[in-house]
């Protein structure tokens, strides 16, 4: 048995530029052509300099690093690529394969949930002879594809591949599940974003290639097309998100217990996410038998009119848009009923512990050497062994309650570390403790902490979960200590709070 989570959106840093031209590219009327070099003229090297945030010292950026991949021209100056390639980019440059000249591009839109990003080159004239590619509008198991990549010399390498699997899978760089396909090919693909063509149309962008299995994990053009449509809208439209966890319902005993026939359709709802579309509409132990007109079998699959048997997640987020209302048939307490769910997008800010897939620099507050911040999934995974060496208590909260704040806006505030200074002598071993109150007042998020600090002129008492004595700081030393700490530890600003 496996718990399935309706795909989570982690839209981040979407910056829009005019994209009116894109609509033209989404036409499905173009005939298939024999393979030629035309579509190859759409391929660009994408060279990225990126900087990750130091999760422990969140005012600090780790040394810049480089990534390289491919992008596809989809319009004048518009280049489609994968989001994880440009994640946390400080500089994005594109060039024609084999050429030396590089041109700066900006990230026009990026959606970690879909692993898709759109780049814009300010002056399309800098990239002459670029031939925008068309996107394939359907996917077929067994279809033969061509994968294209380039040698340093600019010489193309092409390999044939066959689509062997269409499925809704978790992305390699994000926890969300979207429609993907797998392609078998003996071309050893080296970089992310390598284009896969069916005929002359783009079938998808390679996200990962497993050389041992000669298998590539591909983001399909149909998903990319939805991303481009959303990016072309005045405000980016994230995919819909229903916000419930479910499990397959095959066990005949469990089915009887839940009041449904031993055999038949339906999945079991185990939890809903507060503030999400399904909250209060679906309940734990509901058996959902039909979603939006599609019968949902006991393993959570439905028969998609376009792609065949797919996991339910695609019917929720891949076939509908935010604002749509879907009818859901279910059995509750043995009684059938139909409910309506108005689909909303996922707002990561609603989570008790946001994932921060996009790796946005964390908010923080340094006071008297106490480094305070909100817990995120990316923080817990920042150690050498990821969650394996995270603080067990913090990891437990993350694994059991990440999407379940008791009150809207609640986060897990932690004392991440203590920067040694005379003001905090005796406290310097504290690390990864949950902060419950500041100056005697309970705090639910970092904004609460900042409010207490500003109101009281600093932290006088910090209350940690499970520690029977408050950590006290001398207010008379605060000002000098903060200045000394900022200087000693080279902290440009003692706090960063996005929405104070």
């Amino acid at each position, binding site marked *: *048995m496996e718990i399935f989570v309706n795909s989570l959106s982690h839209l981040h840093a979407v910056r829009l530029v005019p994209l009116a031209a894109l609509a033209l590219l989404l036409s499905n009327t173009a005939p298939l052509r024999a393979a030629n070099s035309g579509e190859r003229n759409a391929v660009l090297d994408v060279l990225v300099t990126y900087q990750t945030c130091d999760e422990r010292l969140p005012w600090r950026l780790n040394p810049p690093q480089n990534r390289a991949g491919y992008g596809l021209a989809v319009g004048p100056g518009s280049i489609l690529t994968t989001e994880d390639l440009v994640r946390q980019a400080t500089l994005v440059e594109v060039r024609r394969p084999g050429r030396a000249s590089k041109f700066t591009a900006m990230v026009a839109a990026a959606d970690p949930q879909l692993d898709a990003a759109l780049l814009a080159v300010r002056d399309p004239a800098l990239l002459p002879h670029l031939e925008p590619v068309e996107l394939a509008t359907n996917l077929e198991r067994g279809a033969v594809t061509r994968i294209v990549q380039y040698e340093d010399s600019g010489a193309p390498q092409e390999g044939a591949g066959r689509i062997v699997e269409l499925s809704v899978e978790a992305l390699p760089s994000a926890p969300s599940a979207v429609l993907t396909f797998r392609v078998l090919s003996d071309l050893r693909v080296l970089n992310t974003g390598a284009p896969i063509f069916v005929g002359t149309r783009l079938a998808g962008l390679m996200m990962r290639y497993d050389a041992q299995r000669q298998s590539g994990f591909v983001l399909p053009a149909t998903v990319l097309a939805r991303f481009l449509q959303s990016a072309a809208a005045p405000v980016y439209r994230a995919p819909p998100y229903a916000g419930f966890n479910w499990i397959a319902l095959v066990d005949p005993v469990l089915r009887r*217990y839940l009041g449904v026939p031993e055999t038949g359709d339906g999945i079991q709802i185990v939890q809903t996410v507060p503030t999400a579309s399904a909250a209060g509409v679906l309940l734990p132990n509901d058996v959902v038998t039909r979603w939006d007109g599609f019968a949902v079998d006991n393993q959570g699959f439905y028969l998609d009119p376009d792609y065949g048997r797919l996991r339910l997640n695609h019917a929720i987020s891949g076939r509908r848009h935010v604002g749509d209302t879907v009818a859901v048939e279910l059995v509750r307490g043995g009684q059938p009923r139909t409910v309506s769910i108005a689909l909303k997008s996922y707002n990561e800010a609603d989570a008790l512990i946001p994932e921060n897939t996009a790796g946005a620099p964390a908010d923080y507050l340094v006071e008297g050497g106490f480094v305070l911040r909100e817990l995120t999934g990316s923080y817990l995974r920042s150690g050498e062994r990821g969650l394996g060496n995270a603080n067990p208590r913090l990891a*437990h909260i993350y694994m059991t309650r990440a999407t379940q704040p008791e009150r809207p806006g609640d986060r897990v505030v932690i004392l991440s570390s203590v920067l040694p200074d005379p003001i905090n002598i005796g406290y310097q071993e504290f690390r990864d403790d949950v902060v419950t109150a500041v100056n005697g007042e309970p705090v639910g998020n970092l904004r609460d902490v900042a409010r207490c600090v500003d109101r009281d002129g600093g932290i006088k008492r910090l209350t940690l979960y499970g520690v029977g*004595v408050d950590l*006290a*700081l*001398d207010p008379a*030393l605060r000002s000098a200590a903060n200045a000394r700490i900022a200087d000693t530890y080279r902290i440009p600003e003692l706090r960063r709070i996005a929405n104070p």
Partner: protein
Amino acid sequence: MISLPHGVRPISLAAAVLGLALTVFTPAADAVSVDRLRASVVKIYVTVQRYDYSQPWQATPLGSGNGSGFLIGKRRILTNAHVVSDTAFIEVQRDGDPRRFPAHVAFIGHDCDLAIVVADDPAFYEGTREIVFNDTLPRLNDELMCLGFPMGGVRLSLTRGVVSRIDNGSYVHSGVDSHLVVQTDAAINPGNSGGPVLLDGRVVGVAFQGLSSSQNIGYIIPLPVIAHFLRDVENDGLYNGYPELGVVSLDTRNPALRRLLGLPAASGGAVVTWLDPFGAAHGLLQRGDVLLRVNGREIARDSSIVMDGNTVEYTEQIERGQWGDQVVFDLSRSGGVQRIAVPLRNPKDPFSLRMRYDEAPEYVIAGGLVFTPLTRNLLSTMSGDISKRAVHNLFYVSQYAKLDGMYEGRTQFVVLANRLPHPVNTYDEYFRYGLVDTVNGRRLGALRDLPEALAHPTNGFHVITFDGMENPLVLDAALIGDADAQIKRRYEIPALTRLRKADNE
């Protein structure tokens, strides 16, 4: 809970490495005294059979190994607990004597990794000589001599090194204990375990563990720990173990904290931040108490006291105490100073998560689902599955159950440790390693509550809920009886339950 330093390993010798390398015995200038010591040091051969915690009705395959030991009088051979734990058969052999003599464990202290072994045949002791203990701890840079039978050798081995550190350290055999250790750069290898470490011909410690990730770091159990063990068994003929005070405290070095606690500027003290519900101090000390003196010794604001001219943590006073002793604290509470005596005891703490040896694990099998108490031994079988959410939860519970109040109403945590595949449980693998919360609406306080809870199905179903899992495991109660009979036969299980009586039964 004491975490294990990376790479620390006990140094008993597995049969697989027997004969791989010889530690050459080098006659030294004090060869005469070494010859005398030959009559004191013995090689210990063991046949090991442990319990299999994932299939708790059976044992693991047999293993064999060897360690060292030395005679300390009254026909007693002192060695490490880890050398003789979980053993089916023990033999001892003197250097230069081809005969091996069967032996048995007389006393064992898993919390200090020491044991006393006695040879069954008095003939073994003919011509032996008991070894003499030193009076004091060695000092830094003192030259030490380690004797034993490392790496499978049949002749006595001698290595030399200096004392490179004296500090508190983890005792990996139990997984949770920490006492004084002496670190040396003398070569201590598998098979040295239990051998004497000498200074000028007198024992100052017992070789017991090494650090695999470093060069020439070996650890010795020093005299105070040995003396504590020997006094304990001499007192009443039983080993009671180290008392557990059960106090977590914080230094009061911070002036703002001192003001918050109302401490005079000149005073020292350690403030109590948490009390172990199973510790000796529970119910006597309180959170927020500032411990000012222990047994009349001033506690400095860095939690240290001065003992024997050395600055040590105040908890060393408890380390030196025995079961039945008491420790007296002068403490500041609510603005006044009080004197409180804490009787030192070692309350039975079901959640200490100390490794268990020579103890058959409890289990209950129902519907092919194997339920056992959460133990450190069980956790060690699932470390490869740490990425699973349920396993992560178990590691959390193992460390935070008392700190986060999860133990209340329980004397054990019950885990679904295994699933013996059968049609009755085909769809239940997902729940493996789950921590059982309720069975048929009854919260499990211990494994022994499970049979009673299973006697009351809910509308014909057994409904089992797990901590941190939203959905329950559901079994058809009517099918369990026949299924268990089949499972018992198919998997050759001698009995479907093994339960110990509660302490109060």
